[in-house]
């Protein structure tokens, strides 16, 4: 249909890279044993799973006993929040932010309905949380603080070390949803003083449907699911063997490449931002510096996100939007509302998320195509700038 294909939706998901698929392949047809089996077909697979655990741990600076494989970021988040609530006696208090992913936010809302109290901390117009608001929110009943490492829509990074220090001082469990950060930026568990960290393989060129949970040694939560007792009972069910092998390999590779990748991505990102802001009435969403190296989020005034995505798609450009219509809901994203965007600016937001494989040429191509798309849609729009 179009000459070029430019994938700029790495925040949604990423392709599995060659080396990762290669590592996974033997575990479908050849090494297919159940890791719980006594025989050698099972034992060879058990060894492979434990090696994957060691690799994952070492990429995160954790020990293997602190890594639990799950079916993805959503499950990791749910296990931590529900598990901590289940472990807590009676009803308690949870601190989180207003801009968490639904896999944290909606769990908290559910727990609130069930009787727990939840503080959804506000963020500033860049999406940053003020650590002092965390400390102020703490009550004697607070049993968990859950703050995402970086926002999936606007890319804003949170001051995790400061928050971790506060949580540690008050001896409260600290969880971070690091799904957008792992594999993109260095993660220092010690410095951040986190007790739990969620990650999802398909965000760093690993397979979909597999994730992990880091649980600091000694911290206890109650399991939600019951079954064969796999993953230290925290996540029972026959292991997704090719998945965990793929996760470990993808993590290993992407963490190795971080030092080199950060600079490349950041300079592509900044070039794209600069170019987009040259278009009339475009605003940058999120923090100008404290943002994911691959995240660009802008609002095109007077036009609507889904319409922009469709038009970009015709040009071979894949991006995403926090617009209501792109998700089938009626409200624009809670994140864009939380940073104070009016309805229309929120509806015009588009996220270009860069990743492995994006090049300078991709940026040039996008910057060539976007102005015409915006212009065309603005011509259709009844809304006019007042100036």
């Amino acid at each position, binding site marked *: 249909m179009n000459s070029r294909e430019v994938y700029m939706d790495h925040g949604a998901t990423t392709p599995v890279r060659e080396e990762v698929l290669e590592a996974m392949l033997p575990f479908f047809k050849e090494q297919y044993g159940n890791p719980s089996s006594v025989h050698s077909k099972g034992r060879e697979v058990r060894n492979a799973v434990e090696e994957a655990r060691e690799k994952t741990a070492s990429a995160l600076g954790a020990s293997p006993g602190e890594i639990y494989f799950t079916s993805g970021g959503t499950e990791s988040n749910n296990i931590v929040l529900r598990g901590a609530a289940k472990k807590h006696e009676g009803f308690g208090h949870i601190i989180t932010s207003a801009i968490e992913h639904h896999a944290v936010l909606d769990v908290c809302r559910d727990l609130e309905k069930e009787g727990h109290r939840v503080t959804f901390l506000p963020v500033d117009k860049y999406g940053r949380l003020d650590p002092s608001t965390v400390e102020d929110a703490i009550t004697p009943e607070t049993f968990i603080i859950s703050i995402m490492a970086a926002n999936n829509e606007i890319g804003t990074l949170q001051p995790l070390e400061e928050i971790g220090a506060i949580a540690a001082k008050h001896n409260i469990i600290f969880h971070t949803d690091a799904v957008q950060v792992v594999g993109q930026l260095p993660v220092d568990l010690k410095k951040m003083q986190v007790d739990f960290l969620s990650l999802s393989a398909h965000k760093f060129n690993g397979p979909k449907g597999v994730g992990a949970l880091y649980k600091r040694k000694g911290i206890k939560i109650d399991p939600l699911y019951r079954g064969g007792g796999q993953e230290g009972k925290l996540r029972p069910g026959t292991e997704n063997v090719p998945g965990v092998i793929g996760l470990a390999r993808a993590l290993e590779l992407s963490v190795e490449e971080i030092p080199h990748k950060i600079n490349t991505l950041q300079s592509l990102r900044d070039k794209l931002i600069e170019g987009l802001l040259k278009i009339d009435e475009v605003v940058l969403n999120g923090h100008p510096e404290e943002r994911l190296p691959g995240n660009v989020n802008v609002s095109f005034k*007077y*036009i*609507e*996100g*889904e*319409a922009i995505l*469709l*038009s970009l798609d*015709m040009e071979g450009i894949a991006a995403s939007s926090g*617009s*209501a*219509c*792109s998700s*089938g809901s*009626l*409200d*624009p994203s809670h994140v864009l509302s939380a940073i104070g965007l009016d*309805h*229309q600016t929120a*509806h015009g937001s588009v996220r270009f998320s860069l990743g492995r494989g994006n090049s300078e040429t991709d940026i040039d191509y996008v910057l060539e195509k976007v102005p015409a798309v915006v212009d065309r849609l603005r*011509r*259709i*729009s*009844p*809304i006019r700038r007042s100036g």
Partner: protein
Amino acid sequence: MYNEKVVDHFNNPRNVGDLPDADAVGETGSFKCGDTMKLYIKVKDERIVDVSFQTYGCGAAIASSSMLTEIVKGKTLDEAMQVTNQDVAEQLGGLPPLKLHCSNLAADALHNAIAEYRKKQEVAGKG
């Protein structure tokens, strides 16, 4: 997601823009999802002889608007009053269920435009 007809109307919307000499303009908007539409009509002998639209909204909203203008051009006002949002969606060959509400503004804007036209006529008749 969208069928070819929707995509065509989205990519090549018919009758876009304002009509400087419109006899009436109908506006409608969804407070919730923020979509807004303006429909301009030119009427002669109770018949819509020209029509154009401006829409702020998603692909379904733009395609529905465009389709509506095709449907009503040439229709009498009474015929046009019979056109429903459902007709528009049907003429487009269907819309994804989640997107049906986005097509709801087109017929509304039309009916608003016709109502405005009638009101103007009344005032003119009285005056």
